[in-house]
């Protein structure tokens, strides 16, 4: 898949994306994250009902070579998780923004959820400054 960062998503410096729709956020990893890892062969996600906190780990992805923690972009309760990426972690490489979504979170604080998340333009600038 070509490098892409959809405009309608929000991003973190830990290379997660989230899409906020009302009081629910859908969370995944960015093109950059999966590219840096290489072929993803394993994924671990929280259970439905678990709480997640902004900036704290909520799961793990592993490539053949390395382990990488996932950091939640938002705080709240997991209401759905994508069993598909647990079964077929390669979806995280192939389709990280749609079929490769990870969890849906009911936001704890809807009003401030997006406050310190980056826009696409900000994230791209951040990636440039990192490289």
């Amino acid at each position: 898949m070509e490098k892409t960062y959809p405009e309608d998503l929000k991003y973190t410096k830990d290379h997660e994306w989230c899409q906020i729709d009302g009081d629910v956020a859908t969370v995944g990893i960015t093109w950059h994250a999966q590219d840096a890892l290489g072929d993803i062969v394993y994924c671990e996600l929280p259970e439905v009902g678990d709480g997640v906190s902004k900036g704290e780990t909520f799961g793990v992805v592993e490539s053949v070579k390395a382990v990488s923690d996932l950091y939640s972009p938002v705080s709240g309760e997991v209401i759905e998780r994508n069993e598909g990426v647990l079964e077929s972690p390669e979806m995280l490489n192939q389709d990280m923004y749609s079929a490769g979504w990870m969890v849906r979170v009911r936001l704890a604080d809807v009003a401030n959820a997006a406050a310190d998340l980056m826009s696409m333009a900000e994230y791209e600038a951040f990636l440039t400054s990192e490289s």
Partner: protein
Amino acid sequence: MTEANLKKTPLHALHVEAGAKMVSFAGYHMPVQYTGVIEEHQNVRTHVGLFDVSHMGEVEFVGTQALAVANRIFSQDLTALINGQACYAVMCQEDGGIIDDVVIHRFSEERILVCVNAANRAKDFAWMSSFKTEDCQINDVSDDYVQIAVQGPKAESLLTSAVVGESAATLKALKRYHFVANMPVAGVATGIIARTGYTGEDGFEIYCPVSSGPIIWSELLKKGASQSARPIGLAARDSLRLEMRYPLYGQDITETTNAFEAGLGWVVKLHKSVDFVGKAALTEAKAKLAAGEGRKLVGLEVKGRGIARPHYPVLAEGARVGEVTSGTMGPSVGKAIAMAYVPSAYAAVGTSLAIRIRDKDIPAEVVPTPFYRPPST
């Protein structure tokens, strides 16, 4: 270490040009992957891959006592080799701890070429040099060589397509762990071509002058295009070797492990005619294992969800008994596999153990190794 401080192999520019992802490894700026580790791994298992292993070191023993001196340093019996034969061996401390694992090439009684791990080059050379005599010069010739590994079921057809005259027949007849000297490839000089490798597949390792390196590399990729020849990064080199249970120095074997517990007893010739460094300690280590004491490096298959990684604790009946030395998801076996040292009592195939992966104890079982067996090569 920043990129600027890293050493570059003579093929570095070609890797960058090919779009390889580059990393720091043993002081070198090396390609870790080109297109994807699983794809590269499978390409070696099914077709052929080229590895730049120029970071590996080479040390030469030259002089009338070359073989005799080397035979005191290494665990194998070099007098049992014929000229043109190579062997895998370990170099030990007096206490039996492994200083390095090496491949030794015997040209003659007066000339030996030893291939050593990149990260151990300085340490090894210092150690070997302490055995130097007037009749045995020991030289670090690492910077004189580019080393290219050609590995996979199509390795022979690829390499023979790049040589002329009788050379193709010579290469076809070359047995595993034998080598030929001074055979031109792609029209340029090589030092030796050995039928060796670190993947479990058939293949060759070409040691050639620096000026030949880029020419041979590019020509083999060009000639091999129709046979799906591709450059392979260090990540796939690691997964390929792990599926074969080949130890990696620094992880599976170190100065605090000995050859017998590492399952490398076959490279230790306790009864050769000369005493070698570590013999007494290794004799004891062997007896200890035979008595059911000590520990063994075993192959483990993870039975639950998760991938074992180096240093993860290994448990038996809830108690910690060892730790993982290497582990990954094996692309050819399709399972999470690992190696770990465990007490002999838990080393039998079929033993149920557990590996602690992020605070969860995941079932694992001692399994036969190699984890992967290439179809008749």
